[in-house]
């Protein structure tokens, strides 16, 4: 360092003895030959003495009182439960908090997806199982086409016509699919509801004079009849819930793991007894 401007910014550190030995030597060499820088270094030394003679002061006595009061109000004295080095770790010990948060987010996302995907299992308000709407549909069709006895039941919205074999291949709960039923009814159409893992079956029967239909629903799905009143009844040896609409009556009952909703144009207790007994008999022969 030959020039003053090169060392002027380092003189304070030189006076403090805070430089590396080689730099200190270079500055000392410069100071031996430069009176101006030497005088400047001396003034720095004197100023430093002046600064270092400044005393430290005690804070006023009341200072602690305020701190203590403030801390008591905030209650920061509660003992820490974790060692300081583990502040960012979870209560699971060695698992980092971020990992726990990430896992929680994934679990939450999966739960939300599952609820959205399988909400049909959890409620009865979805249109596919809204049998109140289906009863309305039946009434509307009958009103539009005349004699109710001769009208077939319409296919339920969301159900597709399939063969019996195809339906059985995909159904994951016990169903009965008799080709014929008491009263001369024979199977006319097979409708399948299939969405995700949810399956439901609608069988439509006709006997030339009238029609009936039979819904078969897994036990964990709740069919809904809306605000329609339901009456307790017993038919074919099982407990039933009977619901009426203007041109239809529906019997809801359970056999094993399957819920059945039998729909007829008019209430016929004798026929209903025979139909349900037949279904029970077929169900009894159905392999689990």
């Amino acid at each position, binding site marked *: 360092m030959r020039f003053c401007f090169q060392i*002027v*910014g*380092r*003189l*304070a*550190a030189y006076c*403090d003895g*805070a430089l590396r030995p080689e730099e200190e030597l270079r500055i000392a060499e410069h100071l031996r030959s430069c*009176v*101006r820088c030497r*005088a*400047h270094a*001396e*003034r*720095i030394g*004197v*100023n*430093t003495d*002046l*600064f*270092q*003679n*400044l*005393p*430290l*002061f*005690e*804070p*006023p006595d009341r*200072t*602690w009182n*305020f*701190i*203590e009061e*403030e*801390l008591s109000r*905030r209650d*920061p*004295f*509660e*003992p*820490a439960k974790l060692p*300081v*080095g583990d*502040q960012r770790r979870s209560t699971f010990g060695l698992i980092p908090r971020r990992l726990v948060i990430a896992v929680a987010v994934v679990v939450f996302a999966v739960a939300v997806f599952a609820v959205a995907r399988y909400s049909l299992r959890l409620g009865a308000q979805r249109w596919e199982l809204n049998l109140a709407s289906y009863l309305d549909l039946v009434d509307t069709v009958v009103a539009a086409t005349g004699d109710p006895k001769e009208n077939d039941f319409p296919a339920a919205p969301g159900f597709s016509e399939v063969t019996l074999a195809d339906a059985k291949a995909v159904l994951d709960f016990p169903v009965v699919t008799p080709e014929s039923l008491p009263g001369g009814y024979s199977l006319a159409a097979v409708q399948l509801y299939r969405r995700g893992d949810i399956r439901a079956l609608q069988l439509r029967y006709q006997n030339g004079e009238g029609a009936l239909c039979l819904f078969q629903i897994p036990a964990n799905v709740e069919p809904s009849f809306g605000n329609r009143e339901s009456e307790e009844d017993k038919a074919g040896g099982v407990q039933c819930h009977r619901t009426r609409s203007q041109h239809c009556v529906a019997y809801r009952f359970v056999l094993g793991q399957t819920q059945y909703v039998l729909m007829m144009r008019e209430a016929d207790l004798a026929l209903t007894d025979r139909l349900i007994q037949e279904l029970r008999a077929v169900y009894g022969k159905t392999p689990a």
Partner: protein
Amino acid sequence: MEEICQGPCLNKWKHRIGIAKNDLDEELIRACQAGDREAFRALYDRFKRKVYSLALYMTGDAELAKDLTQEIFVKVFRDIRMFRFESKFSSWLYRLSTNTCLNALRTRRSLREVGIDEVIGTSAEISANDSPEDREMRSSIRQAVGRAILTLTPPLRAVVVLRYIEGLSYGDIAEALSCSEGTVASRLSRAHRLLERQLRSWHPLPLREDA
């Protein structure tokens, strides 16, 4: 840190004065982290002069310095559980203290700049054995130096106070101010140049202006 516990330091920590300072610091801090109220008070007693003096020389206002001291210690006790012994506690404390003071200087525009005169003028540090003239002279010098420091910009003031009054090393100052040691050195040199004229009349030696 020449004193371990001053003032009403609590008995639990008083008898441990013989322990090495660093060990005692760590023990005190761990006790504070565990919520020991007596340890909080002992820690306050240990560092209160450093913190209060830093705030006083930085602001020149005794009342504000007291408020800042309170604010700093409340922050220390609130955040002490986050201290992980990865650096010196004093560095952590000085960083927090300096930042609090610099923030206060940024946000509070009206300071009682004569406040430091009153504090220095009544300082008990001046020996009672001095003659009245000596006491008057020493008090005047200190007041002048204190006022001169207040003419510096806050960043330059901070390095002067931390280095010469608080006695921190260049490395500790750099850590407290989040800058390099080179920056500390250049700020100190600049501060000396700026203060040279103000302090010249108090220099005890005849200074040579030129060869």
